[in-house]
């Protein structure tokens, strides 16, 4: 059984505080300090939320994928370690759904303001929607299958879903799309004005720390649920031993 020391709790609160503080700085940078975009006006400020969140919603699936592979590897060899990997996979999958939902929603708001339509079936948007659908179906599977095999089946599905993530990432590089070309690490015209960088980096850092905070919180919750389940199973076994045969 794990020891929830006050130190650990303090660290968790400190982390939460830091992420809120960084997000507040990022908010001030993005909303008040960055000069207004010449072409888009104030709507352009959604960039500082849409892009970092989109980047992160492609990173969490990989953690989910790696954790699922570790689960499949440890499943028979070290079941207790495997449960830890499974808890991490579940928490990252949930955060992936949250982040990709926010990415889709902010993208739709931005699209409505600049393109005049909420949604268009262009490869980037479609593949991002596909990513969202895949991780929703992952969570569905976890609810539908009975407790014994959930972990294994979900880990297997995660491998299938992970095949799609690179397609999303490469979609704006492979196809000419309505979605803007890559801003960072793209072609010769990529990159943004230096005045925009501080706001971008503060928000990227803020949403990263915040996402990690939620993942760890959800991970701890899932671990507690697992421990409670093991405790209950143990008590059931002990109770059955006490019955005179």
């Amino acid at each position, binding site marked *: 059984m794990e020891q929830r020391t006050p130190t650990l709790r303090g660290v968790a609160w400190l982390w939460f505080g830091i992420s809120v503080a960084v997000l507040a700085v990022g908010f001030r940078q993005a909303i008040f300090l960055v000069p207004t975009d010449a072409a888009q006006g104030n709507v352009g400020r959604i960039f500082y939320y849409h892009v970092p969140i989109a980047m992160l919603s492609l990173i969490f699936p990989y953690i989910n994928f790696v954790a699922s592979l570790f689960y499949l590897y440890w499943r028979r060899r070290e079941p207790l370690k495997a449960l830890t990997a499974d808890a991490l996979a579940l928490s990252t999958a949930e955060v992936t759904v949250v982040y990709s939902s926010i990415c889709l929603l902010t993208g739709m708001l931005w699209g409505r303001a600049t393109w005049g339509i909420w949604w268009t079936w262009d490869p980037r948007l479609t593949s991002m929607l*596909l990513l969202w659908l895949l991780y*929703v179906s992952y969570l569905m*599977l976890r609810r539908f299958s*009975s407790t*014994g095999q959930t972990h294994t*089946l979900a880990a297997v*599905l995660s491998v*299938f879903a992970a095949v799609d993530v690179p397609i999303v990432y490469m979609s704006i590089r492979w196809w000419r799309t309505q979605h803007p070309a890559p801003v960072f690490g793209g072609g010769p015209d990529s990159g943004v004005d230096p005045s925009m960088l501080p706001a971008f980096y503060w928000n990227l850092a803020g949403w990263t720390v915040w996402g990690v905070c939620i993942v760890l919180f959800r991970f701890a919750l899932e671990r507690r649920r697992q421990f409670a389940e093991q405790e209950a199973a143990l008590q059931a076994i002990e109770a059955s031993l006490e019955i005179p045969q």
Partner: protein
Amino acid sequence: MKYLQHVLDHLRKDLRLEWRSRDSINGMLFFSLLVVVVFGLAFDPTSYPTMARQISGGILWVALLFASITALNQSWTREQRNNVLEAQRMAPSPASALFLGKALANMLFVLLVEAVLAPIFIVFFNLHALGNVWLLALILPLGTWALVVNGTFFAALGLRARNRELLLPLLLLPISLPALLAMVEATTGVLTADLDPIQINTWIKQLLGYDIIFTTVCILLFETVLNAE
């Protein structure tokens, strides 16, 4: 060679099972026929030949996708009677041979349905393909395999779940979307001749890549799914 023998044995068993009941083929045939009729009524394709050409590729694949889901849900259930599946888990043949045999059998069933459906489709939708029709001989099997290989896998995955019938489409549809896009685009390109051959080639190559990737993943992971406890 031994492995191939195992696959063929499983395939023969599945074909014999299906021959005795003919449940899934009849079910699929009637279901896809209904979908075609429903879409025919909804869009009135005979009066607008251009529109019929543009939508019929999509309707054909959607009908086949839904039809194969109804059959795939059944394909493992009949192995569960009398604990046949447990016996197969203990059999000395590799688990992936069981999977490949089952997937090949399902593929044959769906191809049979396609062979019956195609003439009906041409009549009801008043179709006259403008592109190179022989490409369909490549697109149809590749697309069918893409649907069937993942469908067989996810039907096995949902075998012991609650709401098995609901779970299969929930898992299969998102995974199949890239393949569905490729096969619908390629088929529509052949029917309308709007797409130039290089683009159709690209879509077929993507479909082939999808088939190779997901067949590999399925074969590698099937043993895990079969023995999941």
